[in-house]
């Protein structure tokens, strides 16, 4: 019992300064929209500034925990925060020209994006199940709305509905899982999960599995993936660029945290096998079905499902090194996947219609830069060396092989081969098919150009000089709290 009713220290404030910055930036945008609509061209700038300030505070926050051990400011969260921030920056950059083209340049889009980002941030930094859940819900609510943002477009509204219904369904399981874990551990803090024998409790097993499906849903891990293609297709592309990257990373981190808190001595065999099954199913289903896709965004959705299959291998392998590998993988995935969506956003003229891949025919000539970056992103997703994607797979498979998961690694590479089929198909359409559309596309906006350039630079930088990102990721992963030795 303290004297003051409200406990609040300076460190606490500093630690949530990044989130406050995001919140403020979002509010500022709304205020500008309400009172100075003429300044709408500055929305993106304000949003970027908000993210920048948030990242500044994030990086400068003292390492440790705050709010009585409920909030994490360790290097791990800094790393993940930077990753999320990068995704947000890319999404915002792409949003500006995208919304302009769509004639929907509204402040709410940015505000919701920022607040969704805030939610993800809470997910990754919260060391308390309920805080994680609140973060998850903040993210979800913001993105339910973003999915249906184009109210004029039926597909967008439908995406909103589907995302909402499945998302709420998944959240209910997450919540029930939290309840079970709470019942078994007596608290909502993750540290309370660190208790000998807890792993053998059936209620805990149920709770963990509920959490797994809830966060697996966010990761679009098969068989919890079904929403992703539809939602990606209907959702405004910049939001997809964010949604397809950041929450997935956050969800995996949460799973890592919870599982390593409960299972101090490594994953039980059944869990490992179950996770491996999810990984294999996800890779295989994602890749095989992606082969049959005709819509660029759906294709990328399935590709994302497959990619999550790969990265789940890290969870199977378990341990800090595996987490480091997953972090590197996510960095690679960020630049490649966000880049791909940025390219999709830049390459299609009509934002409100479908995005058939066939329409990209001849894009290599019409929009050489965007097409080149798109191709680079696809090669990276396919894991061709000298790109970031290769580095991601390199560390991932290394981690798997080190722990003796040979079959998983083999299935992984076999799947890579399948995936090349559809990645190359897109490249083929970009460069080798005669165009159906003869009209020259609008000149690439500066922001698009910047986003694409950033992604390309990221892909090549990670691909060619991976040692920095690996070192940082390893350092970050070493601070995973509550994990066993």
């Amino acid at each position, binding site marked *: 019992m303290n004297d003051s009713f409200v406990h609040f220290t300076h460190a606490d404030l500093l630690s*949530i300064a990044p989130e406050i910055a995001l919140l403020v930036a979002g*509010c500022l945008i709304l205020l500008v929209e309400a009172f100075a609509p003429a300044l709408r061209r500055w929305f993106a700038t304000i949003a970027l500034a908000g993210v920048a300030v948030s990242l500044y505070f994030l990086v400068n926050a003292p390492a440790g925990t705050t709010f009585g051990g409920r*909030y994490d400011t360790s290097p791990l969260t800094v790393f993940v925060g930077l990753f999320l921030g990068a995704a947000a920056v890319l999404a915002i950059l792409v949003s500006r020209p995208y919304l302009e083209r769509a004639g929907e340049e509204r402040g*709410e889009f940015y505000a919701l994006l920022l607040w969704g980002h805030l939610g993800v941030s809470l997910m990754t930094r919260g060391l308390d199940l309920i805080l994680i859940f609140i973060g998850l*819900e*903040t993210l979800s*609510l*913001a993105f339910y*709305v973003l999915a249906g*943002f184009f109210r004029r477009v039926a597909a967008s509204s439908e995406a909103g509905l589907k995302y909402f219904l499945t998302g709420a369904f998944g959240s209910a399981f997450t919540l029930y899982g939290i309840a079970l874990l709470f019942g078994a551990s007596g608290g909502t803090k993750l540290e309370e999960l660190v208790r000998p024998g807890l792993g053998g409790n059936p209620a805990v097993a149920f709770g963990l599995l509920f959490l797994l499906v809830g966060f697996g849903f966010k990761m679009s891990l098969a068989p919890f993936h079904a929403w992703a293609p539809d939602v990606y297709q209907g959702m405004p592309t910049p939001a997809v660029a964010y949604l397809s990257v950041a929450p997935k990373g956050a969800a995996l981190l949460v799973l890592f945290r919870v599982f390593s808190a409960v299972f101090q001595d490594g994953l039980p065999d059944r869990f490992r096998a179950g996770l491996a099954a999810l990984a294999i199913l996800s890779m295989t289903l994602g890749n095989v079905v992606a082969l049959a896709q005709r819509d660029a965004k759906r294709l990328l959705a399935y590709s994302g499902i497959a990619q999550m299959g790969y990265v789940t291998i890290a969870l199977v392998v378990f341990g800090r090194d595996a987490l480091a590998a997953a972090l590197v993988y996510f960095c690679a995935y960020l630049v490649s996947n966000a880049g791909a969506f940025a390219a999709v956003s830049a390459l299609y003229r009509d934002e409100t219609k479908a995005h058939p891949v066939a329409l990209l025919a001849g894009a290599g000539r019409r929009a050489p830069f965007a097409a080149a970056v798109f191709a680079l992103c696809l090669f990276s997703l396919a894991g061709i060396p000298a790109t970031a994607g290769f580095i991601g797979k390199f560390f991932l498979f290394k981690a798997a092989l080190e722990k003796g998961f040979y079959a998983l690694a083999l299935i992984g590479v076999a799947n890579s081969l399948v995936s090349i089929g559809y990645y190359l198909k897109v490249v083929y359409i970009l460069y080798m098919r005669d165009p159906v559309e003869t009209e020259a596309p609008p000149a690439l906006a500066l922001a698009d150009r910047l986003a694409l350039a950033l992604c390309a630079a990221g892909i090549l930088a990670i691909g060619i000089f991976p040692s920095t990102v690996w070192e940082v990721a390893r350092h970050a992963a070493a601070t995973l709290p509550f994990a066993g030795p």
Partner: protein
Amino acid sequence: MERLVFDAAALLAMLFAGVMVVSRDPVKSVLALVVSFFALAVCYVMVLSPFIAGLQVIVYAGAILVLFLFVLMLLNVGREQPDGMPRPIQTVLGSLAVFVFAGLLLGMLRASGSKIPLLTDGLDPVEMARPAELARLLFSDYLLHFEAVSVLLLAALVGAFVLARREDAP
């Protein structure tokens, strides 16, 4: 005695939950759920959470479900009509899975909670039910959560505004 009340309320809640699920008429569904939530509120009281029970009645049954009802009326959604397209896979697989799931879950819950009475170590039930303690926690240990929820509500507000606003609004 308490157990009897609790069980009766719980059964009632389940019963009306069942009605809610079975009913083809969404309005009836909502109303059934209102009843179910009232019964749940009773259960909440029985598990030493009168404050939450109040919230349940006020917020859930009173506000949220009314909102549902309102939207139903607004959209003028009628009874669910059979569309002549039976979906046996969904129905059969779904039911089957629910049964398996319920079996597993209930089995586990029964085993994990059967021997434990509520408040075994003789804590004061009155103390448990006092909202002041809740408030204290809310503004100390759960301060961050509280703030986070405010953001969530803000986002929901803006979101609902975005989606439901009139088309000609800027």
